[in-house]
């Protein structure tokens, strides 16, 4: 008989921690001799209490369940639902339920906790409820029928969750808190205050500093809360969420050691005062401490499961109580010593009432270690701060940079400083350690890391950090991280730029035959074309360059999804005469072009066929327009406000300056597109701080901002120099642009370029303002050459029959009708039809001679 050697393991409680224990236990190797029986007080298997309020948003209790019903049978675990244990007999080693008595060899108590209901007269009313189980939620739902208002007593974490649950029931929700602020355990005064404002904005009324002395019948509503200060509040139902207490009565009756205020005392192996009885989760008291979070409970479950199966290497050594959560949609984070109770602790705070953000760092007396932090409004800072606090990483010299808005461009933790436990990708929960392990297992590049760990494949927000970590780790492993442009050039863009300039090379063929190999590709050809243009500014469609250009540069227009092109004439500074505006309108009307105003204060005309482009441009040039370079990696627009010419606030003529800048830099090819703006006063209506080059007027001249951008990852530009006169402004921008062109990577915008410069903004100031490299005269001279060699590329094309012939759709057939491209009307204009209806065969055949 095998039963003779089978040992009985009983688990009391099937909450989240009890369930985790079962799973951890089943994962152990030495389990064959154990028969596992689990007693649940509730009539359903373990469910997710953390997301309890989801039950109200979707009404689906099954979705909360942690494992399928079949889990227990499949793993030979006996689950006794709705069979609470009534007593433990330690001498006989049995437990008793209403149905039977069961023997145990080892017993695990995972009894959890119960909601504390303060002893207030009237708290036994049928509409006074608690918030912990699905049954509680069902009671709240029943009570909500015909109710208008609900009050939560307790403004802690669970109380705010409960308030959310009431809101989801369509009730007007109130939160009553005894302390002067919300979440007094996790937040400081400022954080609590801001949370209160944000929650109030969401329609939850918050009453702090209120002690409830009694609950009586209401006149307008079912109940009335009577506060100790004499005020009252009427409501239809009350949910108590004034803290939890350990569920330790079974243990107490069995004579196990309890803490002075409850809780089953356990040692580092999670054993109670009886070595055969373990306690885990919220019912357990470790070194005088209770743990009301699920993560420490899971750690105890892992420890107990290991110890029970003879693995004594595991022990519970306390847990970090830092939390990050979204309460009623508001980000709240609390790390370590949030209140600064460590002797000598100092704090740094960032409070922005405008944005509704608050962040506090608690530092050691010497300012070198992060002891704790409070976050309200934006939890994106949490992961990095937690790494500092948990791993005792030395803080940067300016720790405030960790909580200032990230647009200030300060790097967070660098790849080398991150500990292995650092979470890089929060979507897929990938740590730096997992990345390193993958690299150790033979993954060799970023693409491989992404496919094997899923890192950076969720929201993608961690892509830059992931790349720097992978490159850093590869370098550390002695793998050369190639900065080669592509397989045809073993040089970076910067090096190629240098070679072109030093050797005076004028064509791609010269460069590849002297410094490269093979025939080039779609990476190196446009990059070299851009370098050649940046150095010599020959027309991009001149014969040696034409086959190098990206499609848009080849046809000096932007290809759209249906194969037609858009046309953007330059409108410097966004200033345009009515006559010019009319001529654009006439062209658009004649060719039935879809017309839209762009974000850069100009006009985009969509839907031109290749054959129409020269015709359209002939008319635009005759009307006085030039190409707008919307297709090029070059200056796009210089946006402006009307400035002092019209505006009562303007202090300088921003339009004139914008036109001057746009005409100065138009056509200059760069590693990526460049956008600029000029604002006529500090109100900044031109949004100059979101541009690569931003100019803002002051009483005394111009402030220059650099390296901002909008787009996928917006970044505010940094203030570079103040109160410049026109000449200083131009020479700084000349130098800055040329230095960018000289040193940036392919397709690298100014913001990334500056972030990657060793020394960042300060270094850039040294080079551009103080001429620390002795380069400024050369940079200005190079810019002068580009400006002097400017020509309108469209004018050049129209003057050259060979170049113009490139714009025939077919070399042997008439131009296709525009209708061939498939257009449908929308709001009075033509847009591409969803299904392309092109009058040519698109079928693909397998063929061979």
């Amino acid at each position, binding site marked *: 008989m095998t039963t003779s050697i089978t040992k009985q393991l009983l688990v009391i409680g099937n909450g989240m921690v009890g369930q985790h224990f079962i799973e951890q236990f089943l994962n152990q190797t030495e389990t064959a001799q154990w028969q596992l029986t689990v007693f649940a007080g509730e009539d359903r298997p373990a469910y997710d209490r953390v997301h309890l309020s989801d039950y109200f948003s979707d009404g689906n209790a099954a979705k909360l369940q942690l494992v399928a019903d079949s889990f227990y049978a499949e793993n030979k675990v006996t689950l006794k639902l709705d069979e609470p244990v009534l007593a433990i007999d330690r001498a006989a080693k049995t437990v008793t339920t209403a149905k039977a008595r069961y023997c145990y060899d080892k017993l695990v108590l995972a009894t959890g906790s119960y909601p504390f209901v303060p002893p207030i007269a009237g708290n036994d009313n049928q509409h006074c409820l608690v918030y912990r189980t699905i049954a509680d939620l069902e009671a709240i739902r029943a009570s909500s029928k015909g109710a208008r208002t609900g009050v939560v007593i307790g403004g802690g974490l669970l109380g705010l969750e409960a308030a959310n649950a009431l809101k989801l029931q369509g009730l007007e929700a109130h939160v009553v808190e005894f302390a002067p602020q919300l979440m007094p355990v996790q937040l400081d005064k400022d954080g609590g205050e801001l949370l209160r404002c944000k929650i109030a904005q969401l329609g939850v009324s918050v009453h702090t500093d209120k002690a409830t002395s009694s609950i009586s019948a209401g006149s307008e509503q079912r109940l009335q809360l009577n506060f100790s200060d004499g005020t009252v509040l009427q409501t239809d139902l009350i949910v108590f969420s004034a803290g939890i207490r350990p569920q330790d009565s079974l243990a107490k009756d069995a004579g196990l050691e309890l803490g002075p205020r409850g809780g089953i005392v356990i040692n580092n192996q999670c054993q109670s005062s009886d070595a055969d009885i373990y306690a885990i989760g919220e019912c357990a008291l470790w070194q005088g401490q209770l743990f009301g979070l699920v993560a420490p409970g899971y750690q105890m479950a892992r420890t107990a499961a290991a110890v029970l199966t003879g693995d004594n290497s595991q022990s519970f050594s306390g847990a970090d109580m830092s939390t990050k959560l979204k309460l009623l949609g508001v980000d709240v984070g609390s790390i370590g010593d949030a209140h600064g109770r460590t002797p000598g602790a100092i704090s740094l705070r960032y409070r922005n009432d405008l944005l509704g953000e608050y962040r506090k760092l608690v530092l050691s007396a010497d300012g070198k270690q992060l002891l704790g932090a409070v976050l309200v409004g934006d939890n994106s800072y949490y992961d990095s701060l937690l790494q500092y606090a948990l791993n005792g990483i030395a803080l940067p010299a300016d720790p405030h940079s960790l909580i200032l808005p990230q647009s200030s461009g300060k790097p967070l933790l660098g790849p080398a400083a991150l500990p292995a436990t650092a979470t890089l990708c929060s979507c897929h929960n990938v740590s730096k350690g997992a990345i390193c392990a993958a690299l150790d297992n033979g993954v060799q590049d970023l693409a491989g890391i992404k496919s094997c760990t899923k890192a950076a494949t969720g929201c993608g927000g961690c892509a830059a950090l992931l790349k720097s970590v992978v490159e850093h780790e590869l370098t550390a492993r002695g793998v050369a991280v190639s900065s080669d442009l592509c397989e045809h050039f073993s040089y970076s863009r910067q090096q190629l730029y240098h070679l072109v300039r030093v050797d005076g090379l004028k064509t791609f063929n010269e460069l590849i035959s002297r410094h490269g190999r093979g025939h080039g590709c*779609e990476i190196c050809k446009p990059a070299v074309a851009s370098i050649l243009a940046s150095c010599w500014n020959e027309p991009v469609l001149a014969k040696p360059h034409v086959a190098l250009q990206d*499609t848009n540069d080849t046809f000096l227009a932007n*290809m759209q999804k249906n194969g037609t092109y858009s046309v953007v004439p330059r409108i410097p500074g966004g200033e345009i005469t009515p006559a010019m505006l009319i001529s654009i309108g006439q062209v658009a009307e004649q060719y039935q072009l879809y017309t839209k105003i762009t974000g850069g204060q100009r006009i985009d005309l969509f839907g031109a066929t290749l054959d129409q482009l020269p015709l359209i441009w002939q008319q635009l040039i005759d009307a006085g327009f030039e190409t707008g370079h919307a297709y090029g990696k070059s200056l796009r627009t210089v946006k402006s406000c009307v400035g002092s010419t019209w505006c009562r606030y303007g202090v300088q003529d921003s339009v004139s300056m914008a036109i001057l800048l746009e005409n100065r830099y138009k056509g200059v090819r760069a590693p990526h597109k460049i956008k600029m703006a000029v604002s006529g006063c500090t109100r900044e209506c031109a949004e100059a701080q979101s541009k690569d080059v931003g100019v803002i007027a002051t009483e005394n001249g111009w402030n220059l901002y650099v390296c901002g951008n909008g787009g996928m990852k917006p970044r505010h530009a940094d203030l570079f120099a103040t109160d410049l006169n026109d000449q200083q402004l131009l020479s700084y921008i000349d130098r800055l642009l040329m230095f960018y062109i000289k040193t940036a990577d392919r397709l690298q915008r100014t913001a990334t370029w500056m972030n990657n410069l060793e020394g960042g903004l300060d270094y850039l100031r040294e080079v551009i303002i103080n001429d620390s490299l002795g380069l400024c005269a050369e940079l200005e001279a190079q810019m002068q050459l580009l400006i002097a060699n400017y020509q309108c590329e469209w004018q050049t094309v129209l003057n050259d029959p060979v170049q113009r012939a490139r714009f025939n759709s077919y070399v*042997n057939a008439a131009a296709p009708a525009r209708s061939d491209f498939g257009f449908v009307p929308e709001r009075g204009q033509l847009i591409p039809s969803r299904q392309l209806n092109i009058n*040519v065969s698109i079928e693909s055949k397998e063929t061979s001679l």
Partner: protein
Amino acid sequence: MSQLAHALESQPSLQQQAVILCRQQDLVPFSGVAARFAEYAIALFYLPGETVELYGLSHIDPVTKAPVMAHGLLGETKGEFYVAAPLHKQQYRLSDGQCLSDSALTLQVFKVQLLDGQVYLLPPTEY
């Protein structure tokens, strides 16, 4: 000599079937132009000096169905030439039209040949 050129010279019947698409001077070296034949739009890629100097592939981007392939950039990897689709940058091998990043995508290949300053096409119906 390519197979088509050989076929054209050795089989008079084929020579009759082949059609002149355009002149050699209509081609743009190391780039593409588009030509029409019946219902077909054909991208002609011209690589003067290479073993195979002329390739003909469908001008229609298989992903967007837009007639744009001739306007893609030509590239070379490990000695093989390809065209990068202008809209979404998939690479298609010139020799057989196979997409290098997605095995499900191909460009139809047309038999074209340079002869006496003319571009010849063997019409697809004759294959």
